[in-house]
């Protein structure tokens, strides 16, 4: 089976022009994620996780290395990679259903079609009656659910969750995570989950990558059955990862 996304020696520097000092944000990262697999990435704050995400989304170009995405044409996927961010990033001037369907609008899909595509997803997250409302009328948790719909509507090959549940209370986060995992399993999506919650990573991932600072893989953990979301958190493993991350010194350029 071909990986849905493959990173080969990817690195990113910022600055270095106009007299600004060069700063290494991502040193060297390689990994592959297969369809249906959940890869969790943990690492210290500022170690380059969001930079990595931006590169996978095509918002930043890597300074080194390459990213290949196995996007099959005519497979019903609207975007190869979609992301749910830490904050909902909804357009305040668009209604809930328009926000959920935003990716299809960006692709030029007609209004009726994109609304028809978005409604089932809103229904899945329990927001079917809220389609005509504006984001400011929703609670934070509801807004984040809309932003999750916005990603799933695109039916991406690769779904990136960048601290997607970090903003929510524990119970809501747990419910939402379970829902997401169910959908992911059904749709056979490759998932990259960035988090600084080690317990979350251990409970949801098939694999956990621990990043150093600046980003490079310092350790990789394979987590076998039972399936993601049902697994108990292994305290010993949690402590081991915690120590690994803690040891990462503050990086100074």
């Amino acid at each position, binding site marked *: 089976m071909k990986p849905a996304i493959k990173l080969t020696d990817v690195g990113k520097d910022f600055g270095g022009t106009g007299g600004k000092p060069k700063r290494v944000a991502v040193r060297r990262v390689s990994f592959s994620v297969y369809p249906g697999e959940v890869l969790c990435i943990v690492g210290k704050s500022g170690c380059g996780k969001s930079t990595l995400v*931006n590169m996978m*989304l*095509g*918002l930043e170009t890597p300074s080194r290395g390459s990213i290949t995405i196995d996007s099959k044409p005519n497979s019903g996927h609207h*975007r190869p*990679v*979609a*992301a749910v*961010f830490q*904050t909902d*990033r909804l*357009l*305040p*001037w*668009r*209604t809930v259903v328009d926000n959920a369907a*935003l*990716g299809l*609008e*960006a*692709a*030029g899909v007609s209004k009726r079609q994109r609304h028809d595509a978005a409604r089932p997803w809103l229904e899945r997250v*329990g*927001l*079917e*009656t*809220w389609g005509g*409302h*504006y*984001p*400011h*009328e929703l*609670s934070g948790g*509801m807004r984040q659910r809309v932003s999750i719909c916005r990603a799933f509507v*695109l039916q991406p090959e690769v779904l990136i969750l960048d601290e997607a549940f970090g903003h929510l209370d524990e119970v809501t986060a747990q419910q939402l995570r379970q829902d997401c995992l169910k959908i992911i399993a059904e749709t056979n999506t490759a998932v990259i989950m960035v988090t600084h919650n080690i317990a979350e990573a251990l409970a949801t991932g098939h694999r956990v990558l621990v990043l150093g600072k600046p980003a490079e893989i310092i350790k990789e953990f394979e987590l076998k059955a039972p399936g993601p979301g049902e697994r108990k958190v292994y305290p010993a493993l949690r402590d081991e990862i915690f120590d690994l991350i803690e040891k990462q010194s503050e990086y100074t350029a």
Partner: protein
Amino acid sequence: MKAPPAEPAAAIEPPPVAAQEATPETAPAEARWSVGRHTNVLLLLLALLLFWQFAVPLLVPGYVFPTLETVVDKFAAILRSRNTYVDIFNTTLRIIGGFVVSGLVGICFGVALAMSKRLNATFMPVVRFITGVPALTWVLLAIIWFRSTELRIWFLMFVLMAPIVTINTYDGVRSISYELYQMVLSLGPNKFRLLRLIVLPGATPFVFSGLKVGLSFGGRFVVFAEAMSADSGIGSAMYTMNQTFDIAGIIVWTLLLVIVLAVLDVLLTKVERHWFRWRRDFQG
């Protein structure tokens, strides 16, 4: 004018209830005009009128400031003349025309300046320079450059309003949240859809304030330009009054202009309200 509600917001329809969710907020009751809300303004107006009627004639002679009666009579006389409506129509048309042209050019130019570093470096200093040029300079230049009075007026309107809209639009685009912009970019829109989905709507709060300032600027200078050169319009009527030292006439025409501008401002505010229906407004 709507009558005040008989029962203030008594029967609010229950909003749609989604599973376990808080109910959506009910829309704030539409602001209605009522005497009660405007008591202070009306009282102030009454006080001013009383002052005008009884105190002003004692303080200054009629040729410095006319009595209330003179102005009211003059108002009636001016409203009876058919030419008045032609003048008002012409001025309104010039204001709207200048507003629309300057608004469109200003928005396009502002967006272009914000989206392109090179355009910005080249043209931003020019735009800033133009905003610094005194209006009188433009008036004089307009008279020298153009023979057609209509062209002179349009030139003045454009040169005064467009830079204001341009700079406001520019600031509006720059104010767009980078996170939102990145989110939209990650959806892979083409240039046109990028503009439509985030750049233009994101800049609108600033665009509206630019349009409003531009409208009041243009509205006040159009009469200036008309007084200098036109043979119709509120400004040229005021010029005629001035030549006959008719202060009452000047006051009446000023009132008419203020009314025209107020109506246009109300219309613009209505458009703005409609656009901002998504916003939870700050209310002091």
